[in-house]
């Protein structure tokens, strides 16, 4: 089964953009609690720029779309989330190069993205960052077929909830030590929207 086509990938980005716009304030409020209050602003700007870039461009492959996405996020977001999401999409793109994106390729691509985030952010599981969500998604995909998107989203949600009681050791929230507990990680929440958007896209008929 083909999971992503050029069209579906564009649609994925369109859905992400919608979710980031709708949840801009929520993400910003989460970031105000344990960060600097710009995560929603950063995500909204980033995916707005992504759509400006890709909407009217012709692409031959999913890898090409995602490379464009990665470059745009890297050049337009900044902050911590820019390089991290930029790297994630770049690694996916690299893994998909010259391939159709079926289940195997998709899973491998997510795994690569997770490695990319880990490398870029020097993050480990349990440090209260978006790495937690991506890592759990990759673990889930290792065990399960990609059909059950609902279950995958539940994994995301449970991980977000897990970040609430963690003490951050990476990113801006780490400056708060003990006081970072009690709030969920904003980057984990935006990662959830990325997978939620993906579900909407893969579950709709073309």
């Amino acid at each position: 089964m083909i999971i992503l086509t050029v069209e579906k990938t564009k649609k994925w980005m369109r859905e992400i953009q919608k979710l980031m716009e709708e949840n801009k304030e929520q993400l910003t409020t989460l970031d105000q609690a344990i960060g600097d209050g710009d995560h929603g602003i950063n995500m909204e700007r980033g995916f707005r720029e992504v759509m400006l870039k890709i909407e009217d461009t012709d692409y031959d492959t999913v890898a090409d779309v995602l490379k464009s996405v990665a470059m745009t996020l890297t050049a337009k977001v900044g902050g911590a989330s820019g390089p991290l999401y930029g790297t994630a999409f770049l690694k996916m793109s690299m893994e998909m190069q010259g391939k159709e994106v079926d289940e195997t390729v998709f899973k491998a691509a997510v795994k690569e993205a997770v490695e990319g985030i880990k490398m870029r952010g020097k993050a480990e599981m349990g440090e209260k960052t978006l790495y937690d969500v991506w890592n759990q998604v990759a673990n889930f995909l290792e065990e399960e077929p990609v059909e059950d998107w609902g279950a995958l989203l539940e994994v995301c949600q449970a991980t977000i909830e897990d970040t609430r009681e963690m003490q951050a050791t990476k990113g801006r929230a780490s400056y708060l030590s003990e006081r970072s507990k009690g709030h969920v990680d904003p980057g984990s929440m935006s990662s959830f929207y990325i997978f939620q958007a993906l579900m909407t896209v893969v579950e709709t008929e073309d």
Partner: protein
Amino acid sequence: MKKIYNDVNQMVDEMIDGITTAHSAFLKRLPNTTVITRSDVRVQGKVGIVSGGGSGHEPAHAGYVGEGMLDAAVVGEVFTSPTPDQVLEALKAVDSGAGVLLILKNYTGDVMNFEMAKEMAEMEGIKVEQVVVNDDVAVQDSTFTTGRRGIAGTVFVHKIAGALAETGASLEEVKSIAEKTINNVRSMGVALSSCTVPAAGKPSFVLEDNEMEIGIGIHGEPGIKRVPIENADQITTTLLEKILADIDYSNSNVAVMINGLGSTPEMELYLVSRKVSQLLEEKEITIYRTWVGEYMTSLDMAGFSITVLKLDDQLKEMLNKPSKTIAFSN
């Protein structure tokens, strides 16, 4: 807090135009970038110095671009590290072959974006070294975490590295004096009110009338603890003691910076400065020079930070060298 702007998404862009137009005698904007450089950029034979970060900290960093300090400042969105492509443009613009020192503050975003730029620049054959300022003693230092963040002490690093670079020193020498400065500078801050990120439109946090936030950074992130507000002497004592406990300042000469975070009047900053002088004198630490004013702000936050830099003869000499910038002139 009401803000003066046109389009919140254009604020940083318009600010950059405002800065480079107002000070066109010695600053310019690299076309189609968010990079502000000396108008005589690419000084032959000189090591380039580039710094930058999110905006909202004005006069940092553009206020330190000019003869004797930075060659370029890379400007990000409010509280958001600039992106690697912009940093790369700055590196390319300032390198005259002698290499470039990147001065950054220890924030995950800054570190990642600047490191990506460094890699790209190196691929283009530019020699780049980097130093990471982490002067804030409010944050626990640890290799397992992000570690300490960089705040107002960064200005001294700009000044000292910039002064040495101006003498024609090598990239290694400039990096080494920047590192010496970082090793000897410590800071800590307090907030009496939050800032408001323009695009967020609401305060980053809320403090009651009788509360203050000890150990605040410069991004509206919460501090270390929230406590009842105290008088000027008490607050000053709390911050200074934490700073002095961190490295051994005994019998040394120091430079002091009392830095306003945005909306604290100078009158109040000078009360802090007064108490710092008294306390250091009691401890037989000699103040070589004091700076009081707004050097590294957090938008419209009320509060201040104290920075103490331990000096040797070389650092003293560099601090006193001429500099021609908007916010730090000798």
